[in-house]
């Protein structure tokens, strides 16, 4: 029995980062067990809505009232619509405890949230990794940009990233496929900002789309992105990166992967005599049967909050407070991105032009606040999305034959509409933490997660600054009807959960070392969002993927040297 359940490596989670661990291990010949708590989602086969036209959705995209009413948290997510709601976890099916409001958006399936992600892939810069040390918050990152740069390249080449080489030290260039480019109004804004605000930039946002597939992408069976912008449904062309189209089938083809869906990981097994982790306890999601699997190396990629949950629930005499948790910091210094602030505007100029086709990305304003030195009354700063387009306005005047005639004319385009959203760095704090609910368990016998996370004064100041700066920059570009709004949304809806098992140099103040190994249990690696020491402003998935590939290759070397 033990043999059948013994592997060279176990990966917990088949999503954005787990897919990369699976790929790296299987490619290098390791017999790898990939555990996924949800169902399997096969590329192409399991994208039921992918080719549906808007008029084919019974509710024209709207989510029925009963579903919204039963699932208020996930219903607040922008992508939880009739076309993709089957990829999101329903609140009702997987409850958690909110000590403070937290919108936990989850995707329990092979592919995880990589199916529905926004596909933004900006690299971190040296200023991001040096942040905590310079500004005295969290702890110093145990790595610098140079440590991760080759792994960014590794991931970018395989995943396929569209972008321009912008030559910015704040947002390093990568391995790019061609860019779709900016609209005329975005280009006008870029020129205005760069001229009037030295050091500020507006660029084409790098994104995980195959604008010009290379040999490696053809080997994956993926084809050119068709700019459909319906990515959240899964793509019939494999035009964007998700684990389902890319890393998971790649791992599968080696013959080294055993993928086990419907596998809820209860905890990691720690052997006190051996002084290391030996495997994992799994509860079959359907049969509730408990099964143990064994391997010399375990990667935890369950998506930040569930990764913390698994570790907190992995108790032993040696680790009564959770695996590797000697310092009591497991689950603490949890952070996210502040997505509350938005801005919209209009532009009456350039009415002789419009955009054509589709573009599954936008423009992007890299962080310009406090980059080189502290210059505001808040720490760190924000990046921002920046998009523009012109919308058709059907003429719905009148009724009867007159209305029909009005509607039958091609609608006129409105003025250029501009929108921007802040992506603010939040400061990890001990008071933002998650823990196990002592009273409640789920139907698989795993304690519920209790979330205690909130904004702080730094976040409020940043929102104010975003409003002021964006309003000023937009006004100077001649935009009108500039409106700012604070959604007051709860943390979590940014879907950028980070920290709780942070990396660091010192075992007294961090959980993971520079190779993402638990200081106190080095054959367990954490390489998803939970490992993040600080959050910076970039969409984090690219960094999770690069850290995973880096750590997996390190683990393979260590296994060869029998060091694990």
């Amino acid at each position, binding site marked *: 029995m033990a043999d059948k359940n013994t592997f060279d490596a176990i990966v917990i989670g088949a999503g954005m980062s787990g897919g990369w661990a699976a790929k790296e291990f299987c490619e290098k010949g390791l017999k790898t067990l990939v555990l996924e708590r949800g169902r399997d989602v096969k590329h192409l086969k399991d994208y039921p809505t992918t080719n549906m036209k808007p008029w084919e959705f*019974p509710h024209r995209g709207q*989510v029925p009232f009963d579903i919204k009413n039963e699932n208020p948290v996930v219903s607040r997510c922008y992508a939880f619509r009739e076309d993709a709601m089957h990829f999101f976890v329903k609140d009702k099916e997987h409850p958690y405890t909110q000590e403070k409001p937290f919108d936990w958006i989850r995707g329990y399936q092979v592919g995880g949230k990589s199916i529905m992600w926004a596909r933004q892939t900006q690299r971190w810069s040296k200023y991001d990794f040096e942040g905590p040390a310079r500004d005295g918050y969290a702890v110093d990152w145990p790595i610098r940009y140079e440590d991760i740069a080759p792994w960014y390249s590794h991931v970018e080449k395989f995943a396929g990233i569209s972008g321009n080489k912008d030559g910015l030290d704040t947002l390093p260039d990568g391995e790019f496929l061609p860019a*779709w480019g900016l609209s005329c109004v975005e280009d006008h804004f870029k020129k205005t900002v760069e001229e009037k605000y030295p050091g500020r930039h507006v660029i084409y946002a790098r994104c995980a789309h195959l604008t010009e597939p290379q040999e490696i992408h053809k080997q994956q069976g993926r084809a050119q992105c068709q700019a459909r912008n319906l990515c959240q449904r899964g793509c019939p062309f494999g035009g964007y990166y998700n684990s389902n189209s890319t890393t998971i089938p790649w791992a599968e083809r080696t013959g080294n992967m055993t993928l086990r869906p419907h596998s809820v990981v209860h905890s990691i097994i720690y052997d006190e005599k051996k002084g290391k982790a030996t495997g994992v306890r799994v509860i079959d999601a359907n049969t509730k049967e408990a099964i143990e699997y064994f391997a010399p190396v375990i990667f935890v990629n369950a998506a930040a909050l569930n990764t913390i949950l698994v570790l907190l629930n992995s108790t032993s005499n040696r680790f009564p407070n959770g695996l590797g948790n000697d310092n009591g910091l497991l689950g603490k210094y949890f952070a996210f991105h502040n997505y509350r602030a938005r801005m919209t505007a209009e532009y009456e100029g350039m*009415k*002789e032009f*419009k955009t054509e086709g589709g573009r599954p990305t936008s423009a992007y304003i890299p962080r310009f606040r406090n980059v080189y030195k502290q210059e505001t009354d808040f720490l760190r700063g924000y990046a921002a999305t920046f998009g523009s387009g012109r919308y058709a306005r059907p003429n719905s005047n*009148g009724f*009867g034959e007159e209305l*029909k005639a009005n509607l039958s004319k091609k609608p006129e385009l409105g003025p250029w509409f501009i929108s921007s959203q802040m992506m603010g760095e939040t400061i990890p704090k001990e008071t933002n933490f998650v823990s196990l609910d002592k009273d409640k368990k789920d139907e698989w016998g795993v304690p519920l997660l209790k979330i205690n996370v909130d904004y702080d004064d730094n976040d409020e100041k940043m929102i104010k600054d975003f409003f002021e700066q964006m309003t000023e920059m937009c006004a100077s570009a001649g935009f009108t009807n500039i409106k700012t709004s604070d959604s007051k949304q709860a943390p979590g809806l940014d879907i950028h959960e980070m920290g709780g098992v942070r990396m660091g140099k010192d075992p007294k103040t961090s959980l993971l070392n520079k190779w993402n190994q638990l200081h106190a249990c080095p054959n367990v690696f954490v390489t998803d969002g939970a490992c993040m020491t600080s959050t910076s402003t970039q969409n984090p998935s690219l960094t999770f993927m690069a850290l995973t590939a880096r750590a997996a290759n390190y683990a393979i070397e260590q296994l060869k040297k029998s060091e694990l």
Partner: protein
Amino acid sequence: MKRRAAIRTIIITSAGVVLLPSCGSDDVQKAVELSKIKITGNQAKLLASLTQTIIPDTGAQEAKRGNPDEFILMMVNDCASPDDQQKFLTGLDEFEKMVKERYGKSFASLDDAQKKELLTNLEDKKGLPNAANEFYSHIKGATVQFYTGSENYMTTVMEYNIIPKRYKGCVPVAGT
């Protein structure tokens, strides 16, 4: 009034909502059975007649699109909150009451000139109770949503293409 015959029964199956013709399609007094709201024959008749007046049918070309009144009923049943469902039902009754007070008969029985007069006033928000204006504007919005969301509209007027293949950030607007 072909539309009048179009009262349908909406039934819920395991596969979702489907529309089936009811057996007695001329029996307008028969209530439309929806899973969450109950519509009387008269309410259904009013909705069919009002949406028809807002955007008249032109025959076969659009027949396969279904009817705006069915679409509205399904959306109210499936997507509206209980409060909004109640508001919708009350809206139908009050609208009919207003019509009867003014014309002495139901909306569906009005002749074309009377309908035109009433809708002109509703469009101009002139001389009618505010509730009637709001109800009309809600029904008109939903009727236009149905029409502009149809395959016919999206493919012929809007040139919808699920595979745009390209993005061009700055192209001249035709005719300028």
